[in-house]
Every structure is written in C-alpha cells, then in structure tokens.
C-alpha cells in the first residue's frame, strides 16, 4: 500500500510550535509511506490540488493529512481524495492543531507528538477498508399516530406536500383534547370553531387515509421501510352505509349506563354513540359492554330505526398492514388522576383535596366542559352536584406538577395560562362571583401570555394568592379551602362553592407500550425522548420516527402545532429523495462465529439488531445469530465492545484499526 502524508502548517497555527518540515521528513521513512510533504494551507485550493496531484503522480492508495481537527476538514480532504480517485474512507486526519500545536508550547515536544500522531493515523489508514455510502429505499407514505391537533396538523402538512398519510386515532373521532376545550388562551377564541374545519379537511383530504377507533399494534422495519400493523376495532357500524343521521343514538333505550368521557364524565351517553356532535367521522360506535344486544340478544332498537342497514352486531376487529416510510408520533397527554393513590404508581394522588369525593372539586378539563357552550351545562357555570351557580370559586395551580412528593418534578407549562383563562371565563359569566387562584409562580412566557394573566388579575379582579393549599373539606355545603398566603405570611381559608384543580399533564398510560412497539425511548414518566434536546427536538432517536405535541413533554397549542409542522417537514425532507444515503459507519456481524447470545441486541440503543435464523440444507434452523439492520444502525459500536466472541465490527473503526493505533502509540 502506498500512502501519502500531507502536513499542513495552517498558516502559522501549526508550524509555530510543530516543525512541519521535520514531521514530513521523519514520516517519509515510516513503512508504507510513498510520499510525504508539507504545505502552508492544505485545505486551500492549491493545497487540495497538491494532494490530488501527488496521489495521481505517485499512484497513492491512501492519504494521511496532518492538519486541524477531523471535525473541521475531514470532509474537505475526503472530497479531495474522491476527486483523486481514492475512496474517501482511506483518508485519515492527524489532529496536529487543536490537539497538538495549540496546546503545547515546547517545539521539540510538540513536534515529537505530531510525529507520533501521524504515525498512529498511518497505522490506522493501512487497515482502513474502502467503504461506500449505504443506500436505503424510501416508501413515501407516513403514519401519524394520534388524531389530536398535533396529528391533524402533521397529517395535513405532509398530505399537502403530496405524500400519502395514514392517520390513526384510538378514539371514535379525531380532535383530541383540543376539541374538548371551550376557549383558548390568550385570544379566547372558540376552540371548536378553529379546530372543526381542520378535522373536516383531514377527513376529506384525498391523500389522508383516516383510521379512527384504531390502534397501532406492531411496527417493524426501519427508516424508509417500516411496516405497521393497525388494528381497526369493531364499531359495529358499516362505515360507508352510515349517514350520521343520529337516529340510532336518539332511540337507544340505554341512556344512563355510561358516562361520556368526552364530557369528562359530567354527562351520560347511550350505548350507541358518537363522542360529540361534530365528531369526524360522524359515525357512531356501539359500546359492547352496556348494549343490551350483547347481553341477551334482544333490543335491536338501533337496527330498527336505521333505514340504511348500517348496524352490524357481528362486526369484528380487523387488521391492516401498511408499508410506510416514516412515523410521526402525536399521542398527546392525559391529566393526572388526582384522586387515585395506587401504591404501584409513581403518582401519589391528592387525597387531601377531595377530588372524586366531592363532586364540586373538579379538574381543569371538566371545567372546560362546564364552560363550553356545547358542554353539559350549555356553557353556564354550574356546580355538578346541584346545578347551582357557584359564587365563590377557587382555582389551585400546580396540582401534581412541580411536586416531587406526588411523583412529578416537571412543570406542566400550560396550567398557569389555562387557570387564568378559567378564572376569566368564570368572571365573564358570573359577574358577581369571586375567583381565587392559589399559585406557586406564574409562568406566562409567550406572546401575549403575561398580558393575559395581568388582564385576569387587573381587569377581571381574580384574586391571586401565592401559596399552596393544604386541605379541602366540606362544611355546610361549602368547600373549605385551607391554604397559605406566603407573601402575607399567614394562613388563608376560603369557603368556596366550587374548586378547580389545575392537574398536571402526564403521558397516556399506554405510552410506554406504544414506545416499545415502535422502538423509541421514553423517560421515567413515559414522555418520549427527543434525539437531542436542543438541536433535534422533533426527532426521536430512532431514525424515521418523529415526535409532535404533548407526547414528548407538556406543551400548549401553538407549540404543539409548530412542533407538528416541524415533524412534518422533517418527514417531507426524508421523502424528498427516492433513496436515503447514510454514512457507512455501521456495525456488521460475522455470522460464522456469532454465538447468538444477543447481548448486542440488549445494548443496542436503536433496536437495530434483529434475530436471524441460520438454516441447514433441510431448512431446519440450527442457529440464531444477530443481524444488524444497516438502515437503523447509527454506528456507536456499543455492540462491538459488548460482544463476547468479537463477532461484530464497526466499519471505519474496526478493532484491527484501533489495535494498530494502540501499537503505534
């Protein structure tokens, strides 16, 4: 092998403390070195030409450049190598600037170190193998999981870019939590009014295939080539026959057996129902658990009234398998269940606030429904217990959030704003009412946010008390809220008619399950981890899986929408070429000697390692070995060090190369 050594002076940056001509001279005598020179600026055009000419003239097979950090100019010199006809991975950089000339004073010492660094690079380059970039085909279809505002936005963005979208929502209708809200901060515009057109657009979009009342049960494959299995739960309604007239719901004799979860359990629903009137698609589902037909085979009232014969009691769950290229996870959040104190959970609950015990102690989403014009009280603020208008209402912030003793250390980010909104809505509707807010801090960062809170305090006279509430109990029809005003430094007691708890946002219970299905990491709460907290906030660490909305961390609507659009654009970037190109620094298994212990599979942070069966002539599996999916592997090499039989090598950093460097120390 003929190797060329090129020592760069970097102006004076290197040559000030490293005797570059001497380094070049000494290196000329190392085994394998055919050509060795030094030059003022190797990265300059003439410098690159020098490299190219030297390669062609001396028929060099590989080059070592002694210059600045590879993070600076590795790409430059690799490109120079390509133009000279050398494989770019037969280029090694000896870091003579950042890790030598700039950090040492003594010329002799620095020169000696420079020689040794070049020697190490030389030994490595001798063992380098030519590598080619890996190409992966891309299926230009995206799976969006979750039909809330995040999923809707992402689906629309990708679809409008011209790519097919599969949108999966587990509820009978898309819309998510946003469809439950009455008004939105800080503009107080009606949530339904801005959301519904989007929902309809999704439904009607030719590029979007909508699966509601469905779940993703299995995801295989890797970036550009996923295969997702979607379970469409039985609605017992034949989709394309139903006109959404609603007669079946009206005539269903079962009226009060089940709470309407859309109304946050403040109202009942029939056994055949749509969650809310504007549901998309406007097709009901039958709740098998309460429907009389499934109990004794009788009733069938809905069948009688449906003139389109859309009811099918025997419908079963169906499975769909779809090839997709990317996934956007937008599964959203749920609220901290304040009443529960289950011992196994990290969430400890707030028994002292009496949620679940007192019907007028409610959470934020319940208040949204009470305040909503389409809600159970048609927008009038009434107590769930007796329907009276509360004259004194207490809002408590940070119920769950920022309270490590109850299991959550993070801030849910939106509660300060929605509490201000709730208090304001209350004051707008009950003019003579009194509203108190117990808070820890007001966190109102955002456009017009601080102004919004000020408005609640100053214009609407909401009484903000800085302090925590220790206990709530009922006395003579009133709820006694015992708290503390930390600014005044004295205890506070409010005899409220109604209490609204701003409970924390937490991930759905089955968020970890879905994460494991897709193969993305999550934190201890179940929020999905982004690839990099600053620079890659919408990507998961699994290539081709993007995150949008509150499934990653608590977010408000504008943040969620921008994140959804960002995730969509990441997917669109992915779809903009037919093939993916990636650095060939990936691990590879020697199947002959792999023993199949799968420790590599356990340590792989990306789930790139699969089980591969090795069969004999008769097709009988006699051995299982690890197989590394080159599309998924990111080249960290953790598997190579874990492998006991050393059957895995990381291309570009293989063990032979590292041993050679050690030998040349």
């Amino acid at each position, binding site marked *: 092998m003929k190797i060329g050594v090129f020592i760069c002076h970097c102006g004076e940056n290197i040559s000030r403390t490293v005797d570059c001509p001497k380094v070049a001279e000494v290196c000329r005598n190392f085994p394998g070195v055919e050509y060795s020179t030094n030059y003022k600026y190797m990265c300059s055009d003439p410098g690159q030409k020098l490299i190219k000419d030297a390669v062609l003239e001396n028929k060099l097979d590989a080059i070592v450049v002694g210059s600045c*950090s*590879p*993070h600076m100019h590795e790409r430059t010199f690799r490109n120079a190598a390509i133009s000279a006809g050398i494989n770019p991975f037969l280029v090694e950089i000896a*870091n003579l*600037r*950042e*890790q*030598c000339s*700039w*950090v*040492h*004073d*003594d010329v002799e*010492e*620095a020169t*000696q*170190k420079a020689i*040794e*660094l070049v020697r*190490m690079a030389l030994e490595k380059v001798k063992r380098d193998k030519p590598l080619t970039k890996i190409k992966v085909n891309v299926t230009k279809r995206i799976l969006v999981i979750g039909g809330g505002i995040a999923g809707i936005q992402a689906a629309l963005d990708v679809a409008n870019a011209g790519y097919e979208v599969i949108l999966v929502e587990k509820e009978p209708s898309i819309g998510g939590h946003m469809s439950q809200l009455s008004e939105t901060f800080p503009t107080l515009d009606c949530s339904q009014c801005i959301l519904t057109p989007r929902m309809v657009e999704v439904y009607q979009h030719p590029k979007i295939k909508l699966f509601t009342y469905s779940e993703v049960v299995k995801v295989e494959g890797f970036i550009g080539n996923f295969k997702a299995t979607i379970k469409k739960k039985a609605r017992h309604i034949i989709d394309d026959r139903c006109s959404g007239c609603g007669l079946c719901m009206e005539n269903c004799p079962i009226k009060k057996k089940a709470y309407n979860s859309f109304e946050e359990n403040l109202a009942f629903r029939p056994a055949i129902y749509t969650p809310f009137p504007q549901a998309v698609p406007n097709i009901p589902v039958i709740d098998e658990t309460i429907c009389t037909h499934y109990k004794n085979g009788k009733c069938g009232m809905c069948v009688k009234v449906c003139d389109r014969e859309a009811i099918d009691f025997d419908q079963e769950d169906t499975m769909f398998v779809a090839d997709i290229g990317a996934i956007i996870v937008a599964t959203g959040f749920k609220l901290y269940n304040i009443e529960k104190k289950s011992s196994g959970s990290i969430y400890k609950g707030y028994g002292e606030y009496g949620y679940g015990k007192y019907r007028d102690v409610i959470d934020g989403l319940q208040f949204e429904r009470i305040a909503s014009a389409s809600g159970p009280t048609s927008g009038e603020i009434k107590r769930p217990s007796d329907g009276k208008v509360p004259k004194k209402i207490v809002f408590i912030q940070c119920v769950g959030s920022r309270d490590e003793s109850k299991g959550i250390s993070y801030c849910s980010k939106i509660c300060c704003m929605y509490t201000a909104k709730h208090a304001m809505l209350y004051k707008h509707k009950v003019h003579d009412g009194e509203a108190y807010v117990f808070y820890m801090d007001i966190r109102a960062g955002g456009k017009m946010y601080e102004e919004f809170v000020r408005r609640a305090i100053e214009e609407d006279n909401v009484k903000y008390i800085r302090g925590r509430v220790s206990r709530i109990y009922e006395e003579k029809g009133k709820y006694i809220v015992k708290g503390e005003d930390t600014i005044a430094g004295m205890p506070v007691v409010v005899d409220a008619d109604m209490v609204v708890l701003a409970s924390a946002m937490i991930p759905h219970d089955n968020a970890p399950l879905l994460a494991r299905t897709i193969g993305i*990491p999550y934190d201890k709460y179940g929020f999905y*981890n982004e690839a990099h907290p600053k620079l890659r906030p919408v990507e998961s*660490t699994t290539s081709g899986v993007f995150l949008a909305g509150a499934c990653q961390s608590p977010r408000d609507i504008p943040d969620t929408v921008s994140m959804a659009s960002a995730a969509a654009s990441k997917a669109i970037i992915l779809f903009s070429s037919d093939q993916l190109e990636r650095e060939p*620094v990936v691990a590879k298994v020697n199947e002959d000697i792999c023993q199949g212990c799968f420790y590599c599979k356990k*340590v792989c*942070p*990306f789930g790139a390692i699969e089980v591969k069966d090795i069969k004999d002539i008769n097709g009988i599996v006699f051995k299982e070995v690890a197989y590394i999916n080159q599309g998924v592997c*990111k*080249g*960290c*090499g*953790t598997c*190579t*060090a*874990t492998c006991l039989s050393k059957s895995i090598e*990381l291309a570009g*950093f293989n*063990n032979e190369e*590292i*041993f050679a*460097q*050690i*030998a040349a*120390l």
Partner: protein
Amino acid sequence: MDKEKWEPKIAAFVCNWCTYTGADLAGTSRIKYPSNTKLIRVMCSGSVDPVFILKAFERGADGVLVSGCHPNDCHYNAGNFHARRRWDFFHKLLDFIGIEKERLQFSWISASEGKKFADVISKITKDIKSLGPFKAYKQMNSEFTVNFPEYNESSNSINKELQ
C-alpha cells in the same frame, strides 16, 4: 531508566462527540496541557473494549484514560451507561489483580468542557508521573525488547529461563 528524563506514555480513548470535541475546544481556547497523552478517537465510550486497555498496557502505555459524554448526554443515548457498568467491573478486576487504580482512569467530558479536558489530562499525567513507569507490565514486556540491528542474546527470556 532515567527517572529524571522519563516521560509517561498515556493513551486516551475518547468518544467522537463529547470528549474529542472537548479536546478540540481546549485547543481552540489555547489551554495548555502536557503532551504525554495521545487520543484514540472512537465513536462512543460504549465501544471501548477492555482489551483495548490491556493492549495499551502491553504496548507500553503507563496509563489509560477513557472518556465519554456525561450520563444522559450520550450521542447514542445509552452507550456511556453501558460503558459505566463495564468499567466498574473492569476497574475492580484490575485492582484485585494488583494494577494500581490510577493507571486506568475515567471521565465524562462534554464538548463544552475544554478546560475540564485540559485539567483531566494534567491530572492523569501528574498521577502517572508520581506512580512512575508501569513496572509491572514493563517487566513483562522486557522480554520483548530486542535491540535492532544488533541482536542481544540475553534478551531471550526463554533461554534465560533455561540457563
């Protein structure tokens, strides 16, 4: 060996994303540190095999440093966590076998910790200097030293053993 003149040889296995970049930052910030340590760049601290360290000792290193991203900052999420467990055992093993603890050191150095990088290198160099040459391994290696081009008969240890 002349102790006055003896300079330790130290190998550092550093991850590409944090410590190597941190070392670059030390350079950019012109923070000076001893020149005894030479870096071997790997993709992740999780990919450093204990045998690399043994090899470095065999090849005459007096000390070895392994450094990666801080916990939770790994470019690959979890490589450094696996590394941490591995080193816990390996360090204990070497200690039990009688290799001075300071010969093998570990650190977390992020891309923004140029100063820390220089400090760690200075510290390990100082530690190794105060320990002196790695006699235990050097002794084992001595049977390999042949003076080229003149062949030194006495260096053949097996012969020595027989004589």
